[in-house]
């Protein structure tokens, strides 16, 4: 942000504007259409389907990582896939978040014993929210998104508190 360069990182103006923008970020989480395995059926397809309809809370999919805010890693990541996951994550613009969906993305799941499988996507990209389950139900994914929303807000709140503490 150029604003923080101009006014300083702990300036009230900067933190207050971040607070405002965090609301927008929370309410408009576009995820990247990137289904790896079984979880994609539940976490991406059924999630955008008629019953669960994540569009209700502004969670919508975009095909290109350049326009996405969240990457849902929905499935097992193996050695061949890891480079792609990393690359796609790198290509997303800031601020960005990663949701590890399902046991495989969290820790390798039922395939963790196989040497070709990476035990958790957090070894490749930083993960913000872990959703357990094999596969997690769409409700769980929804809860995961709500957790992510709270997390987005909490970061700025913490910063505000820290700035207040420094100032006093």
């Amino acid at each position: 942000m150029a604003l923080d360069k101009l006014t300083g990182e702990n300036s009230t103006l900067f933190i207050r504007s971040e607070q405002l923008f965090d609301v927008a970020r929370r309410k408009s989480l576009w995820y990247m259409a990137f289904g790896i395995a079984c979880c994609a059926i539940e976490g991406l397809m059924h999630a955008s389907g008629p019953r669960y309809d994540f569009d209700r809370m502004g969670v919508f999919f975009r095909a290109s990582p350049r326009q996405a805010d969240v990457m849902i890693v929905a499935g097992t990541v193996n050695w061949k896939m890891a480079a792609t996951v990393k690359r796609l994550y790198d290509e997303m613009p800031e601020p960005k978040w990663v949701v590890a969906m399902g046991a495989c993305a969290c820790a390798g799941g039922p395939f963790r014993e196989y040497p070709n499988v990476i035990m958790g996507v957090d070894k490749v990209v930083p993960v913000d929210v872990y959703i357990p389950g094999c596969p997690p139900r769409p409700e769980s994914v929804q809860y995961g998104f709500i957790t992510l929303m709270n997390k987005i807000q909490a970061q700025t709140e913490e910063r505000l508190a820290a700035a207040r503490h420094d100032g006093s």
Partner: protein
Amino acid sequence: MQQLDTTVARGVLERAGVTAAVETVEGLGAVCRVPAAQTRAALLALRDSDLGFGFLVDLFGVDTGETIDIVYNLRSLTRDEELLVKAEHGYDATLASVWDIFPAALMPERETCEMFGLLLSGHPNPKRLLTTDGSEPFLRKSLEVRTAEEVRDRASQHVDAGALDITASSLADASAPAAETVALPASLPRVPAGVDVEHSQNLVLNMGPQHPSTHGVLRIILELDGEEIVAGETVVGYLHRGIEKLAESRRFNAVGTLMDRGDYVAGIHGELAFALATEKIAGIEVPRRANWLRVLLGELNRISSHIVWYGPMGLDSGAMGQFLYTFRDREALLDILEEITGQRMMFNYVRPGGVVNDITTTAEAKIRAFLETYDVYLEENAELLMGNEIFQARTRGVGIFDRQTALAFGLTGPNLRASGVNWDIRRDRPYAAYDEFEFDVPVAEAGDIYARCQVRLEEMRQSARIVRQCLDGMPEGEHTAKVAKVLRPPAGEAYAAVESPRGELGVHLVTDGSDTPYRMRYRPPALYALQAGEAFLPGNLIADGVVLMGSVDLILGEVDR
């Protein structure tokens, strides 16, 4: 199925100058052992003789501890017979490709060679299929999976994702003499030799692994002249997670969990294939009610699986509505499946000996209510997409697999029936209780994308019909046979196939008397469909290529296993 007369087969092979031992094995039928060097001659003789073994069902390897057996599973559709050809290879042998005899062998050969550490000769595109350079030959018995300690100590695994090299180099054996290429099917568009990315003057485009319409993590390298596809090469393995290897370390009741995650939208069928193979070896008698429940769940699952094809088929051709209308139905269906099995996707419901739970009365009522609405919705959906003139213009006469090519590429299931081959395992090799049901097997002659749509739609109607018969005539009795908690089937070998929504899902099971399988081969129908789709990409526009790959119904979990 006819039992093959072993003397006839022996005679055919002798005339071709092959020294072979043909015998009949319990659970497998006729098995023919040929020397490794004479495999090509034997297969050619069997294909061109009166026996007409023109259909390669599957190709895989078994590490026996001393040798690596390469198994060719052949079928003759004219005489309705089956034959297993086994060739013994050493651990550092070179596999002579048979792709010119059976184009279906193209990808399975690459997979077998990388998984068993063999070299390949005479193959047009001998790259590794599933893994990257430096990977171990995972399916060798000498290689162990991670131990419990390694798994528990998750932090010790270190991944430097930025520096990963995912090149899959050639497995070709440069020293091996080139075999003489025999006649290929005339309709084969071109030798599927992949895309020469180094020397191409055209636009070379990566489609996938992250692309809205590659149905998972399929990567297609396209060489484009303008918008027209000049050459296409599919790259798979982005979801390879060792289902076959892991099955060797799981007890028989637990392998179902892995099978579920193979073809993850039609789990029941995977479980069922494995259960049937186990029951064959262990000699378990399944109660009649269990068989009926297997049919019931299998057909409900078939509908839910075809929905995952039909909705995205609309998306691929640009119609968003289909996807959402069909997924509305799928939600209702998953509710039912969840009530019976306890899970929405990964059922682990069919176990060796029967099924886990009996059906509840509320579930029965739910199914009936579902079928009432479904009949209406299905016709609506069919009219909306199939009746649309734009869709018809996009799909009629595009991506035609003629009968001969479809057979050559090992297509099965709806894809094969859309090319005019009347073959359905449910009717021609009845398993579970399918011989007690009345249903039609839809066949279309055109072989184009539209024909594949028609066949699958009619299958959805027929599935509803079977489900109705199931509910009306469900026999009383136990839902499972008395089976030991830890099953230890005797040493043996069996092949069992089911008609999964994607085609012939087969399990070739080898046991050694322990509580885990010795070798479990999963015959992935989607892999064979993928090969055919790849071969027919050239000459289409990008838009048609997308619809073509969608129309053969790929599930990457099954392709990569």
